[in-house]
């Protein structure tokens, strides 16, 4: 009994000591500077560093690295294939978002949770899947080869890899907008005699558009950056199936960090612009 009281008293006193100890101003400032330093050292410093590094040996060296046909062809190819993958994704993503929100059917919840699978799955595993399904020796791969179409180690495989990795973006960006859309608006359009197609293009599509754009942009920037899935299925032949991130990796491996840095900042600047556009679109959407 006495012992219990004592313990409580001690606990109370310790608790008091804890709070005064934590309350000390030095701790507050220590915390703040630690967090900000962590942030600066981890995020800001490396990004700053790569820009400095690629211009450290002067503009001419940078220009030389970019002017290398293998380098700029890799960047252009990445953009081209990224655009194709994004366009496909915008179409099927919008459709799936629509179906998952508007229709009730067996398996809907399951499909809805499966959407995020490409986010959760390691990209290297994604690449391996494509290789297993369409690669040499597989059923589909040999079938396509017989018909004269080459998939794996050629451009179609890269597009498929990008498609797989960026699959969730458009769906997840459009869904909340569709949820908010008032079905009454559609019904009003119907009752006033608008056709189904006209209602879709005049009422539904405009309200999905911010989601389609920002989701598409996110998918595009992810497609530009994708490495894991692509490196396993692309042939990596310069000018034909060598994309920018794989090119950068090759330059690092062959001990040419300056060349890698030059292409990197080209790609980085492009991604930063995309990111900036996305946030502008979203802000405008919020204001509207």
């Amino acid at each position: 009994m006495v012992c219990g009281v004592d313990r409580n008293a001690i606990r109370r006193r310790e608790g008091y000591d804890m709070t005064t100890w934590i309350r000390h101003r030095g701790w507050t400032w220590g915390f703040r500077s630690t967090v900000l330093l962590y942030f600066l050292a981890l995020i800001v410093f490396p990004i700053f560093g790569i820009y400095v590094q690629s211009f450290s040996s002067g503009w001419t060296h940078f220009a030389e690295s970019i002017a290398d046909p293998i380098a700029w062809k890799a960047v252009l190819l990445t953009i081209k294939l990224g655009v194709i993958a994004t366009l496909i994704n915008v179409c099927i993503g919008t459709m799936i978002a629509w179906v998952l929100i508007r229709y009730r059917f067996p398996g809907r919840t399951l499909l809805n949770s499966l959407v995020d699978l490409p986010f959760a799955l390691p990209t290297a595993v994604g690449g391996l899947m494509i290789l297993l399904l369409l690669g040499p020796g597989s059923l589909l791969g040999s079938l396509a080869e017989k018909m004269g179409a080459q998939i794996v180690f050629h451009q179609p495989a890269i597009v498929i890899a990008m498609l797989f990795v960026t699959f969730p973006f458009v769906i997840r960006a459009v869904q909340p907008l569709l949820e908010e859309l008032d079905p009454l608006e559609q019904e009003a359009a119907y009752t006033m005699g608008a056709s189904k197609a006209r209602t879709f293009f005049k009422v539904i599509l405009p309200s999905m558009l911010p989601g389609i754009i920002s989701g598409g942009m996110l998918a595009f920037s992810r497609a530009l950056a994708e490495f894991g899935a692509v490196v396993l299925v692309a042939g990596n032949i310069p000018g034909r199936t060598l994309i920018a991130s794989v090119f950068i990796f090759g330059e690092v491996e062959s001990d040419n960090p300056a060349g890698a840095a030059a292409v990197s900042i080209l790609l980085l600047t492009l991604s930063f612009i995309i990111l900036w556009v996305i946030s502008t679109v979203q802000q405008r959407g919020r204001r509207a």
Partner: protein
Amino acid sequence: MRRLWIGLTYVVFIILLIIPLSRIAIGAFEKGLDGFMEGLLRPEALHALMMTGLIVVLVTLLNALFGIMMALYLVRANWLSRRIKGVLNSIVDLPYAVSPVIGGLMIVLLLGPDSIIGGFFEGIGFKVVYAFPGMVIATLFVTFPLMVREVMPVLQEIGHDQEQAAATLGAYGWTTFRKVTWPSIRWAVVYGVVLTVARSLGEFGAVLVVSGNIMNKTQTATTLVYQDVENFNVAAANGVALVLAAFSVGILLLMEWAKKRKDVQ
């Protein structure tokens, strides 16, 4: 019309997600259970899985802690001007836009053996790049935004009335956080943790560049899969890939659960 759309959706899901996922499972057991176990119990596979596990634990802990703090500061701090907060806020997203390979390259450039900082650490006998610390740093870089972006909207939504009330009633910073703020951001933090685990488990590009992919030393599960495929040893890759895929499906289920709890709040 309705039937057609639902059917099309099913077709996309089956072709793009379900068939590939089951193909991995079939591939892993192509040579029976023994083949699967053999691929998985190779010493290099066990070591790679251990490395991945260590990285996931360390990165999740560090980024959960600093992510929550950063989110708190970005939303609440009155010792930072609004403009600085705006700038910091947009910087948080930058790792999303950086290709993992480039993220790895940045760390090699900054901390590699040829750099000033890297040379200094090398001098005192501490290897950063092509060793474990570099791999952790690369994964930290890639996963930093996830926690911040999950916690920030919740903090903005709940406002700081309750926190101010608690402070007025005499509660100190830590008590306010534990009793008032924490209960409302709890599920957002859980969701952020799940996302961070998923991303650090699957991180490949950045780790590949930074680690040098040295077998039994700096090889992680994903870079082992890559190396097996490059060596035309697809059967062995399947076992490790299946373990990773199973983890991802588990994470997906956790995500669903956390999302539901988060929405309830």
